[in-house]
């Protein structure tokens, strides 16, 4: 798999399809770090493990480079989805970026609880089937079951938060400037742990239809809050109702932006929508 990638990168550089290739390099003292490969001699140091989220980095690098520079990124499934979402939000120009898609192993997918451990444009490796996150015990503890018990579990988990903003900074799609989480109106300042409902739910809801389930937020969290689980139920319902998954298609827009006439909900007529409690229609 590594050799294949090296050949491909070399070919790309020789044909001048890309000016630089963003990937991981094993440098001095075996330290692994991101690096832009632009000549053949460096390619010996190329590695593919561990998982490293390169999408946001690619976005920031592209902003500093001259406009005719074309960057290729060695990316996994989640990176590619994040790049597509950033293209949709006009943060990356589609012409300036190329992807070299590599597939994840099944072990990696089961660690990340990834439903789609392969990119849509797969160049190296073989796609393995994804994992259904709702089969996992950790997930079911927090997401399925009695409301009261789950509330207690969530409170216990979220009380550990030290408000380091790591979840926001590491997220490939959190790009707003200025950020609502730093605003006194929305999240109270000067208290640790962060306000549980306000901080975490506002952050989670902002990513409701754009979360690509890469798990960068929970990997960055210093106190190990499983933040990705907040997104799972929203992702699931978008998938079930509108057949939409973030980052699969560059052209398809989020169903939340259009009305029921353009993008109807499955198995539900428009007049049926009266009341969200659903037991009485107020008639």
């Amino acid at each position, binding site marked *: 798999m590594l050799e294949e990638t090296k050949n491909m990168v070399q070919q790309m550089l020789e044909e001048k399809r890309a000016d630089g290739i963003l990937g991981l390099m094993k440098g001095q003292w075996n330290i692994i770090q991101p690096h832009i490969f632009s000549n053949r001699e460096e390619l010996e140091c190329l590695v593919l493990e561990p998982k490293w989220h390169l999408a946001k980095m690619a976005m920031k690098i592209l902003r500093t480079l001259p406009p005719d520079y074309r960057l290729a990124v060695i990316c996994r499934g989640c990176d590619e989805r994040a790049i597509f979402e950033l293209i949709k939000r006009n943060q990356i120009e589609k012409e300036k970026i190329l992807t070299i898609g590599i597939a994840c192993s099944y072990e990696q997918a089961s660690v990340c609880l990834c439903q789609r451990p392969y990119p849509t444009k797969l160049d190296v490796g073989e796609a393995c089937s994804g994992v259904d996150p709702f089969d996992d015990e950790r997930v079911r503890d927090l*997401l399925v079951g009695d*409301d*009261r*018990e*789950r*509330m*207690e*579990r*969530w*409170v216990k988990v979220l009380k550990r938060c030290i408000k380091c903003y790591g979840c926001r900074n590491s997220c490939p799609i959190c790009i707003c400037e200025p950020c*609502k989480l730093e605003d006194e*109106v*929305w999240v*109270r300042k*000067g*208290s640790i*742990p962060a*306000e*549980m*409902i*306000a901080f975490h*739910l*506002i952050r*989670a*809801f*902002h990513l*409701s*239809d754009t979360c690509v389930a890469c798990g960068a937020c929970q990997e960055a969290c210093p106190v190990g809050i499983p933040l990705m*689980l*907040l997104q*799972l*139920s*929203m992702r*699931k*319902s*978008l998938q079930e109702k509108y057949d939409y998954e973030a980052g699969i298609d560059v052209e398809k827009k989020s*169903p*939340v*932006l*259009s*009305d*029921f*006439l353009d993008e109807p*909900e499955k198995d539900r007529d*428009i*007049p049926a*929508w*009266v*009341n*969200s*409690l659903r037991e*009485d*229609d*107020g008639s």
Partner: protein
Amino acid sequence: MTVEKNKAREPRILIFACKWCGLIGADGAGRNKVSLPLNFRVIPVECVAFVEPDAIIRALASGIDGVVVMGCHVGGCRFNNANHVAIKRLELLGDLLDATGIGRDRLMVSFGTAHEDYQFADVIRKYVDRIAQLTTLEPWVMPRAKKY
């Protein structure tokens, strides 16, 4: 005189009412002196699409027990089907509230059900009963820091 400290607090409810539907019902209820539970406040909005989900989250975080969003009936919006978008958004928010155990019942989204005064009163009464049955949000809400 003794103050009963353990007495359960009356549920507090915040209503975002669309100017063209829910607010007319609320106005009418006041004018016709319909008997209503007293524990709600109404915030008029031009259209329900103005109601940010963040505002609802903020309300729950500040100790409000339930939020009601009232809009025109689906298909009767004055602003190019803006309430369709609001429905989609608020449904997603409901999923998020469900995932954390707060429960989607805390947020009632109701469209075209509160145009008349008696309808408005009915919706509010039912919702207050419902909120009273739910468990408290106390563990979630952080106490306000002391001011010195």
